[in-house]
């Protein structure tokens, strides 16, 4: 038996362009070379800086929720670079796709499959996991997640999925059935190659990670809240994180089961979803969307949470209608499990069933509408500052509403029959994902970046970038509504109606603007790092924040809070400020116990990546070895004595007293000077009069 299984030299995409030169192979090989170069350059750079030890100690083995959150965000942005490049490649192709196009149909299919898979699982999911990880323990006044090591393992499992997608770019191929990977199109009979196998293992392995994350978030929010923090005192973002945690716990198993059943069909010749011998593809469609629909709420709810925090912070008002916001969030979470069938109205359901699911889908508009009104009424007569987050918010409010309306249109089964699988659908989901999830993420980065790194991001660069995102989005995706209604099918490499051409040209221009916007993010970062002294806000509260995460220095110490705060109301920090007693020295300090660093995540990452790769290429020995390593390592570890890192009380006192002293020496900055260099993170609270 060959130790490399079915892997051959020819599977390396690097060579493709030399065997058979064309634009198509140039794009494929070029991407592969690009990935390899980027990887080698990264390794070389770290070696050159001599930072391996630091990387290992400070990041790769950490269990600090804040650092894990930051690593999720970095992973998301790295994968985002690839996802955007693919989007632009697809749009460029489509601009030339009248009766052909520059890429092969196969390559186009691979592109929308990796693009969709990566954007959903390895960009959007890491973004929301990043925010939840970073913010929740700080907002609820806790030192860490309920299960810090499990948290690290979840990150590792997500990274495994991302790594498998990246490997597929260089070695072998990806599947061509879209991010949903419907069998029997992805069955062994139709596509025996490695592509669907990469998909199966990337999804199944990262699916376990997400399930564990969901459990961890839920337990953290149920059990680790600071004393006195009742449910109805929790910040809105924490509420959305709780709902997302619950959704992840219950919605990911259907996906994992569907992926593993698909693997059984492919590897062991089972008949779950095959065409013959009693297989039933509709089971797959149901399982996938039983996950898939809640998934979109897993992604959007935390973004709603960010926007909710945003309107009250940058409107300088208490959130209007907190209770209705909480009820709306919960209703959406529950309803999201009852609508999955709207993804396949056309696949042979009875009219009655379609109607029932259509109505259920429409119902979600009610709580969503409540939210939109809550955000607007919070901003109404607020003391709004036109900072970067508000620019994103403005784009979000208008564009997301349009996206929501197109969703209502799609919820009607009879209309859906007309536009199903056209570009109309592509327009709809990009319309909710970009203005919703992506703008939320980017606004959130602007709000909490100073918390995480101690300096603000440059406002001007940030505003230009935000405008580029908004304009780029409109140009790239709004025309798709039109061509969709004109009958341009989705996932189609070519078209034959010249009427589409002008629209496709607008789209490709938009796509390049989006590419510029992506570059704008890095420009903003670069400019801000250069000016970090002027932008520094070490005192921790640059925006006159309302919730507990602003009551710590920036960046917060590893232990978050010197003593666990006691909470007596909603918006705990705003309350302290309004009563004129923020930043009090605690009467006494105690030793703080924190969980120790561990290599668990690293071991699991290496072993599961090896497993996924080995299964894809039929290297059975390696697959078995990696399973043995994971199980053996976990069993051995459970025998280790319980260790802790103890931070002595004097150290906590030193750090905390120095911070409070700096605040007492400083001068509070009011909102008019928020974006000037006078803002060192000590906000002079000037909230509008609040009725209690």
């Amino acid at each position, binding site marked *: 038996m060959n130790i490399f299984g079915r892997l051959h030299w020819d599977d390396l995409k690097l060579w493709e362009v030399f065997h058979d030169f064309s634009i198509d192979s140039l794009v494929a090989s070029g991407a592969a070379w690009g990935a390899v170069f980027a990887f080698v350059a990264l390794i070389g750079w770290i070696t050159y800086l001599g930072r391996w030890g630091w990387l290992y100690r400070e990041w790769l083995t950490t269990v600090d929720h804040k650092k894990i959150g930051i690593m999720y965000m970095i992973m998301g942005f790295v994968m985002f670079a690839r996802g955007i490049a693919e989007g632009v490649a697809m749009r460029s192709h489509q601009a030339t796709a009248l009766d052909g196009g520059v890429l092969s149909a196969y390559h186009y299919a691979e592109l929308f499959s990796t693009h969709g898979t990566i954007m959903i699982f390895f960009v959007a999911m890491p973004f929301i996991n990043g925010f939840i990880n970073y913010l929740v323990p700080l907002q609820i006044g806790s030192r860490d997640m309920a299960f810090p090591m499990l948290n690290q393992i979840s990150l590792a499992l997500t990274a495994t999925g991302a790594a498998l997608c990246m490997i597929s770019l260089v070695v072998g191929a990806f599947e061509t059935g879209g991010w949903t990977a419907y069998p029997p199109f992805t069955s062994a009979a139709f596509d025996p190659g490695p592509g669907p196998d990469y998909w199966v293992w990337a999804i199944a392995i990262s699916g376990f990670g997400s399930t564990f994350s*969901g459990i961890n978030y*839920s337990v953290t929010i149920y*059990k680790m809240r600071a004393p006195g923090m009742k449910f109805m005192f929790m910040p809105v973002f924490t509420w959305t994180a709780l709902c997302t945690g619950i959704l992840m716990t219950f919605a990911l198993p*259907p996906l994992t089961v569907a992926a593993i059943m698909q693997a*059984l069909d492919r590897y062991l010749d*089972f*008949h*779950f979803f095959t065409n013959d011998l009693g*297989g039933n593809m509709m089971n797959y469609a149901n399982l996938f969307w039983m996950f898939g629909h809640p998934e979109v709420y897993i992604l959007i709810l935390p973004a709603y949470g960010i926007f909710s925090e945003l309107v009250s912070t940058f409107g300088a008002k208490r959130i209007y209608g907190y209770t209705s916001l909480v009820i709306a969030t919960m209703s959406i979470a529950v309803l999201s499990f009852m609508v999955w069938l709207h993804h396949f109205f056309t696949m042979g359901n009875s009219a009655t069933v379609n109607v029932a699911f259509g109505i259920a889908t429409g119902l979600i508009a009610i709580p969503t509408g409540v939210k939109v009104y809550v955000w607007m009424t919070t901003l109404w007569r607020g003391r709004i500052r036109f900072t970067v987050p508000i620019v994103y918010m403005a784009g979000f409010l208008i564009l997301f509403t349009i996206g929501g309306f197109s969703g209502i249109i799609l919820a009607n089964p009879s209309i859906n029959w007309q536009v199903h699988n056209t570009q109309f659908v592509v327009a709809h989901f990009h319309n909710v994902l970009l203005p919703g999830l992506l703008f939320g993420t980017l606004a959130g980065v602007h709000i909490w970046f100073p918390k995480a790194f101690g300096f603000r991001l440059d406002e001007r660069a940030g505003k230009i970038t935000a405008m580029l995102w908004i304009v780029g989005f409109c140009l790239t995706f709004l025309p798709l509504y039109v061509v969709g209604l004109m009958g341009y099918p989705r996932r189609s490499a070519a078209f034959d109606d010249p009427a589409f051409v002008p629209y496709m040209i607008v789209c490709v221009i938009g796509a390049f603007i989006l590419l510029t916007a992506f570059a704008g993010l890095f420009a903003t970062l670069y400019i801000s790092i250069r000016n970090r002294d002027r932008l520094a806000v070490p005192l921790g509260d640059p925006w006159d924040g309302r919730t507990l995460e602003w009551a710590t220095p920036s960046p917060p110490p590893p232990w978050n809070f010197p003593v666990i705060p006691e909470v007596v109301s909603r918006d705990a920090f705003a309350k302290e400020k309004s009563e004129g007693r923020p930043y009090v020295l605690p009467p006494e300090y105690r030793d703080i116990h924190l969980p120790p660093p561990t290599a668990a995540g690293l071991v699991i990452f290496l072993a599961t990546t090896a497993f996924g790769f080995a299964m894809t290429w039929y290297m059975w020995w390696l697959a078995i070895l990696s399973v043995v390593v994971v*199980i053996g390592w976990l069993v051995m570890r459970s025998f280790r004595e319980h260790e802790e890192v103890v931070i002595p009380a004097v150290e906590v006192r030193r750090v905390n007293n120095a911070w409070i002293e700096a605040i007492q020496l400083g001068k509070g900055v009011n909102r008019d000077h928020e974006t000037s260099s006078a803002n060192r993170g000590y906000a002079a609270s000037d909230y509008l009069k609040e009725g209690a």
Partner: protein
Amino acid sequence: MSQVEQNVHPGMNLGYSGDTKHAEVNVFGFWLFLMSDLVTFGIVFAVFGTMTGATAGGPGPEEVTNLHSIALQTALLLGSSFGFSWASLSMKYHDERWRTLGWLAIAATSALGFLVIEFIDFLHWIEIGAVPQRSGYLSALWALVGLHGLHVTAGLLWMGTITAQILRFGLTDKVKSRVTRMGLYWHFLDVVWVGIFSMVFLAGVA
């Protein structure tokens, strides 16, 4: 005791503090895991439900159901759960390691018996051509029964680890907390088995 160490949350909390508080967090987390696992089983059950007719002319429920063997398996698995309950009780009331270990050994032996008989059933299925490759129905059957069997196997491995930990550390708080969680898992597998036993085998031949 300061306010900080008391639990002033409403609802779920049982009012423990200190180390026991973390045990409570662990147990609560484990309950959530079991609920998630229950969704997994529920889905495999549902798939099985849709595939009961999909025998494609191959062996059906009559051929794969051997009620004697199923009765014996049920007795052994329930017996194992029973043994585990005694292990938990003796841990709680006697706090004496050999007694707990004795019950654990009974629970493990009984579960091992279950697995052996299940394995013999599988061999028989292969013999009569009731392999998962034969039809959608058989794929779903093997997946459901196999998933449960895999859980039992993992549980045995876990029980072995706990046994070694009791020998090495004694009945420390940490070990006790693990036994508690293992108990939840073990009884959960019984509940699932009752589902399989009634919905797959009894309903299949009824």
